[in-house]
């Protein structure tokens, strides 16, 4: 049912209350809009990947992307030009952390997702299909500690330099380097563990 307005009511009864409000200049607003638009256009794919790889449920990525930019836009005036990517990254990581906590609360009993046989059958050189690859990566990333996962994803997927990562996360470069080393070792070990059943089958 569509509710239609019935007759001409008081359209704007309260509009006069704030006539004395300070008036922002139109050009400043246009500049702000242009900046916001540039941030969305320039970083929306980055934000979506960061959210996905940081554990936002895939069904909620669109909402979390929207949420990230709305929060970012609210604080945009405090962000110095050139620091937009770091800023949006931190907002996205917070949104993803919130999404993970919400998901964890929703699950009364955490059920360990079981990989399909096709995933387990992948050998080191075997190319699996795209969906299988994504599921394998999900399984590995979700088991990593968040600090290691973030550095791993930013370096290996987003191709940010260690200097950029250190600046964006506000941690020393040495910490980035050590987290990356540990994350890589864990990534490899977990991938090996996924592959192990098929290799043990081969030996039988």
């Amino acid at each position, binding site marked *: 049912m*569509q509710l239609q*307005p019935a007759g001409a*009511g008081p359209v704007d009864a309260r509009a*006069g209350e704030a006539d004395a409000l300070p008036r922002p200049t139109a050009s400043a607003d246009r500049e702000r809009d242009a900046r916001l638009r540039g941030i*969305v256009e320039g970083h929306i*794919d980055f934000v979506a990947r960061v959210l*996905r790889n940081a554990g936002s449920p895939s069904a909620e990525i669109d909402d979390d*992307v929207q949420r990230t930019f709305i929060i970012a836009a609210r604080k945009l005036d405090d962000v110095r030009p050139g620091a937009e990517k770091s800023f949006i990254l931190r907002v996205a990581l917070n949104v993803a952390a919130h999404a993970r906590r919400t998901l964890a609360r929703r699950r009364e009993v955490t059920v360990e997702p079981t990989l399909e046989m096709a995933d387990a059958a992948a050998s080191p*050189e075997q190319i699996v299909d795209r969906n299988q690859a994504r599921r394998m990566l999900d399984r590995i990333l979700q088991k990593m500690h968040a600090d290691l996962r973030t550095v791993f994803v930013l370096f290996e997927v987003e191709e940010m330099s260690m200097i950029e990562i250190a600046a964006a996360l506000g941690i020393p470069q040495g910490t980035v380097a050590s987290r990356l080393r540990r994350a890589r070792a864990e990534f490899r070990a977990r991938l090996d563990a996924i592959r192990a059943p098929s290799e043990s089958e081969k030996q039988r």
Partner: protein
Amino acid sequence: MSDPVRLFDGSDSALERQLLGVARSERSSREARAKTLAALGITSSAALSAAAVGAMATRASIAVGKTAWAKLLLSLSALGAVAIAPPVYRAWQRHHAAVDAHATVGRAAQAIAAPPAPTEMAAVAAGAGIDRDRPALDGTAPVPAATLARELAALDVARTAAAHHDPRRAIALLDAYARAYPGGSLRPEAEILRIDALAQGGHAAAARYRAEAFVRRHPGSVLAARARQYLAD
């Protein structure tokens, strides 16, 4: 300190390279982009220019209206600001209402009646220079870019009408949107606009009724905070 070679480039495991390659190739969905732009209210100058709104003065007035919309959304999403945002928004609109409001709305309405050229509109939704055919992250079948762009344009004209203090026209335009896109991707955004327009038109009970329904249907939505303001009134 020099960076190590990335696994995607240097790993001896094809599987490792493939997993990382899949992650690297992913893009946001068109719906995510459309919803984000709609929520921030920063699409219409581009969308409406594609709908042949040419004059600089007109475009400037749209930009002002859009800014007000963005301010409304942003202030509503701030904790504590929910209750005061609507009168502030309306007052702000009074200051900035465009001189040629009716001309703008009239021309903009053509975006519904006669959708603009698909290629231009596709560019609006798809983003210039970005390959939107790459896999989307939500795993759903993508909505054609041109369809999303037309949905965005349809909501923009409704929003423009509301920004120019014409809630009845805004609701009529939202009805047109609902008829044109019964399964549209931006229905939640359209419903929020409708609730705003009902409240703006003095139909507080109807706005509250629909707001309650919205919150029930989308309790975790980023837009639910906007609906809740009508429950608190």
